[in-house]
């Protein structure tokens, strides 16, 4: 078996697992769709890059909890291509939970933002791909993240900056985790964006039930109480994610809570 999710617990970093010294399954072609209890299905185009990046290591469940929504965003939603990474009119995608890099790098490679050979030796001394992303090192990466609770504030500022310059087409998407919502900085941003009707902002909360004290009533309630529109969907269901991610009303900020669990 290539993945051992059952034994992985909720490891918060993705690439710190030491590479096995022997008996590792060599990187190979994209794995076939797994059978229970194998790893969750990975969107086809992402599988190859992810395997190359994995290089025999074990990934935690958090890697797989984010790949589907990342893929739907880059495949169906975001108005950004490798040729438009500096276009002022592009959509912005801000990965706030910076530890979710494995799927992020794999998706960026699958979509041509980064060359496949960058996936080798991730985190190594000459690699541009760290365990947290650096916007100055990776084309298409809008923010450097890692310390939790910074992306939503930056996203609010980005949305305000675009609006102040009359750039009314781009949307700003910020991806967070449910445990990341513990950071109070998020609630400053949620309250302000709601109060001011920051309509070009979409938050995506990947809810893998990892918040230590939980969010009674659901993570979405923290947003809706502040005037956001909210949709809570199955974080594996691409069509449901697509529908939710296009469900903003252009008057208020929008949140999509992508629930993933049972892994």
């Amino acid at each position, binding site marked *: 078996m290539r993945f051992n999710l059952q034994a992985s617990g909720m490891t918060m970093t993705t690439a710190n697992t030491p590479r096995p010294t022997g008996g590792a399954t060599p990187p190979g072609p994209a794995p076939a769709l797994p059978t229970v209890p194998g790893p969750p299905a990975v969107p086809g185009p992402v599988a190859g890059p992810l395997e190359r990046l994995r290089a025999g290591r074990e990934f935690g469940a958090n890697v797989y909890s984010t790949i589907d929504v990342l893929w739907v965003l880059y495949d169906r939603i975001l108005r950004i291509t490798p040729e438009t990474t500096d276009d002022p009119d592009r959509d912005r995608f801000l990965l706030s939970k910076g530890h979710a890099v494995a799927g992020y790098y794999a998706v960026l490679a699958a979509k041509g933002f980064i060359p496949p050979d960058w996936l080798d030796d991730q985190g190594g001394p000459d690699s541009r791909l760290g365990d947290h992303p650096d916007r100055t090192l990776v084309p298409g990466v*809008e923010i450097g993240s890692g310390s939790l609770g910074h992306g939503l*504030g*930056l996203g609010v500022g*980005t949305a*305000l*900056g675009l609006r*102040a310059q009359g750039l009314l087409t781009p949307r700003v998407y910020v991806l967070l985790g449910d445990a990341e919502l513990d950071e109070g900085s998020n609630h400053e941003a949620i309250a302000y964006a709601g109060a001011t009707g920051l309509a070009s902002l979409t938050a995506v909360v990947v809810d893998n039930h990892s918040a230590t004290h939980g969010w009674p009533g659901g993570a979405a309630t923290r947003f809706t109480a502040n005037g956001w529109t909210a949709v809570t969907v199955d974080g594996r269901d691409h069509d449901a994610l697509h529908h939710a991610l296009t469900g903003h009303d252009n008057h208020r900020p929008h949140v999509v809570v992508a629930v993933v669990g049972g892994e």
Partner: protein
Amino acid sequence: MRQTFVDTMTDLLAEDPRTALVLADISAAAFTPAAARHPERVLNVGIREQLMMGVAGGLALTGLRPVVHSYAPFLVERAYEQIKLDLDHQAVSAVLVSVGASYDRAAAGRTHLSPADVSLIDTLHGWTVHVPGHPGEVSALLRDAVAGDGSAYLRLSILHNDRPHGTDGALTVVRDAGPGAPLLVAVGPVLDAALDAVADLGVTVAYTNRPRPFDTAGLRKLAGTEVILVEPYLAGTSSRVVSDALADRPHRLLALGVGHADLRRYGSAEDHTRWHGLDAAGLRRSITRFLEAALQPAR
């Protein structure tokens, strides 16, 4: 100084569509006219300092030039990680403008005092720090900072010298005691007290309102063996810079400024100036002791 900031910033918002102002309630009333004219570039996020700095980072990511303003402890200390990550690590910049300084609102107590702000900014890379010594210096410093593309910290205070001193950041000799004389460098509003303190001593006095980047070339030109720093924030903030600049020369350094201890006393800014030994009499005591030590015969 605060009013000069409000007036100049209001003008800049009108002149340059690239500028934006981010507030966390402090001074919001003073910027009401500017906010009415530029509602999308004057942004008051409420009492949310983490968001204030995050918003500045986001604005800068879209190409705007954010100016961020609050009381010094709330601007620099409360959301320091946002300064480090939302500005510096994103490779974007902003102009931070504080009021309150080390103890302007002494009666408000420790929560509103910020003697360590310049030290904290000094942990970052590539920042310019302006500490005007008179309201008449503020406008040009703000305009320069906003026109630049790096990050800058402009530290405003109610304390000031009798008159402004024009400077481009270089050490400016205000009083020349001749070659080899002890050199006193006064930063911002402590200049007048420093001049009084050494009025009858053979000490050269130089002034700057831009402690970062420190004019090390000017320092090397002016310094003899004795160097005295007088700074209106934490004592020793610039010791490292001066020591590095003079590393190849035997020299003695006296670094005067605000003490580390929480005095747990209210009173006025003038009271705190005296308690920290930064009034003319206090400075004179420290400086005389330092210079007398130099005259002791070697044992």
